[in-house]
């Protein structure tokens, strides 16, 4: 049961990383801000250059 729980946690953590939720959480921590439209817009601006330069593979 413990193993299963750990596996689910890891899968969820991977999904959060893939879908940039973790990056947004780190952004909020770094800025010591709470989630809001403004904060997310700021995050997207900061993240835009990083994301736009990331190639998607063939």
């Amino acid at each position: 049961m413990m193993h299963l729980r750990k596996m689910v946690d890891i899968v969820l953590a991977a999904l959060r990383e893939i879908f940039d939720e973790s990056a947004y959480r780190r952004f909020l921590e770094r800025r010591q801000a709470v989630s809001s439209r403004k904060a997310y817009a700021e995050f997207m601006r900061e993240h835009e250059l990083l994301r736009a330069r990331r190639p998607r593979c063939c």
Partner: protein
Amino acid sequence: MPKPLRIVMWIGVALLGALAVATIALRRGEQINAMWLVVAAFCSFALGYRFYSKFISAKVLALDEQRATPAERLENGRDFVPTNKWVVFGHHFAAIAGPGPLVGPVLAAQFGYLPGTLWVLAGAVFGGCVQDFVILLFSIRRDGKSMTEMAREEIGRVGGFVAYLAVISIIIILLGATALIVVNALKSSPWGTFTIAMTIPIALIMGLYLRRLRPGKVLETSILGFVLVMLAIWGGQWASQTASVARVFTLTAPTLAILIILYGFAASALPVWLLLAPRDYLSTFVKLGTIALLALGIVALRPTLHMPALTRFVDGTGPVFAGSIFPFAFITIACGAISGFHSLIASGTTPKLIRRESEARMVGYGAMLAESTVAIMAMIAACTPLPISYFAINSPAGVVGQAPEVAAATITAWGFPVTAAEMHSLAQAVGEQTLFNRTGGAPAFAVGMAHIFSNSLGGQAVMALWYHFAIMFEALFILTILDAGTRVGRFMVQDALGHIWKPLGRTSWYPSIVATSALVVAAWGFFLWQGVKDPVGGINSLWPLFGISNQLLATVALCVATTIIIKMGKARYALVTLLPLGWLVSVTFTAAWQKIFDPHSRIGFLAHARNLAASAPTHEASRLIFNDRLDAVVTGFLLIMVVLILLESTLECARVLSGRKQPGVKETPFVASRFAMEEQG
């Protein structure tokens, strides 16, 4: 587990793998179960990971647990973030998995399932995984530097320049070739076109939802997007059955091509949050889910492969693409076995997330094994339906004829008896008017996937839904690559033009955005247009061109890796990268040479141009002659780039080996890992 038991277990895995490979390779004249391919892949990959990657880790790369990675040293919460190895694995896999391992094996299935399967097994273990692993580790030891930067620092200026040109070439050719796959899948298909058209407003809704209503809730937004896409697939059936709507969404290949070109331009110029990011999230969500679903479907159904191990087309006369097994099977499979593009990911985001050097093995080598497993699944999906449908779907009108009766007669004459009525009923079962001449691999893969899914869940009644789900999955996947690729290409062009005139390099200056987006879109749009107007379907010329450029990039990556290994003073282990490099050079050279100079007009660009020149001069013939000559020039240019980087890399290695240059690499100096110290207490 006690050591003797471990030894027995690995001997068991080796024997089972050998039995599976022997069954795949030696059975003739009888159909085999797809599980043999699954077992062969599982055992080969397990052995490769356990023994070969461990050997590379210990002897060649000497992974150091005590050495801090850039994620630890440069941690900033943005791009440098020490991350759990499984999370990095998932992230890396999601980035490297593209349409290549799905489309390549489907196209290569024209030779039968054997050549492609064997190449995926061997190519991944000894080539693709090794490339991804070593480039990832070398980038980790250089603060996450890109492949282009490593080529410049370790090989020389020419190496760096060639790497840059290789990257931009592959992006442009890749975008042209994959866009053609979408066009061929959607032409005259109101259901498919409606579904894909709906993904644009869905992505916009997702973007606004994410920005205005639920900031940062990406997973939730992706689930919402997925539900909307499912509704769009269901709605597509209604659209295809309602005459007035169907008329709007029944588009010809040239119209679709123009729309896709316009879409690519808009997506590159619009803000990322509005279209690119939500579409990327949606595509990743669908991709991961569908790959898992396909794996479950194959294991649940355990289908029989109806395609023979080898077809008569091993002689090079195949209708899908012309050319013999060597080199074209290897060029065509591309990303399923080895992909140069992966070296960009392995020297991009991933090295900045790795917590410990030892984890590079699982992420670099392991994720490529997962990608190759996807290629094996694609091969199974292509070979599960009867071969008659495979050849009917994948053969261009220019080869089999335009009319269904003529096409059926041609395919029957090849030894795959089929009637126009049989193909018509298959088309009806998947909700299409016709399945003839749908080249590009996507529709054939979708038929195979629909076959596996409908037999596992829902039966024949839902085959049309599954088919369009598969088409949506592939098209969504490819369109995401188109918009992301166009943007990456745009940034690369802006970086280069910024050296000539500074304002052009400013990524936020709108005139520069519009000009460079237009330049990149025009480049891949040209190849797309060429494919759409090609009487033999375009895939015959574009996919090999893409394969050659992709393998060229892998050649560049392996040149960088081999040079670094020799400069590390480990020349005795250089064969690890030198062998796949030698193989790739022979494949790339032979394929490029044949594509330019082969006297058969279906293979050689120049021979085809000569044939056209000998016929009656028309505007159409002149255009085709120009395209052939341009393709020959592009191929020759790729070939020259391989020669240049090989020469510079060989000279650099010779200087080190002869003692004229001190061995030494430009690694970041050693810093002790805090994580390692904490673990040791």
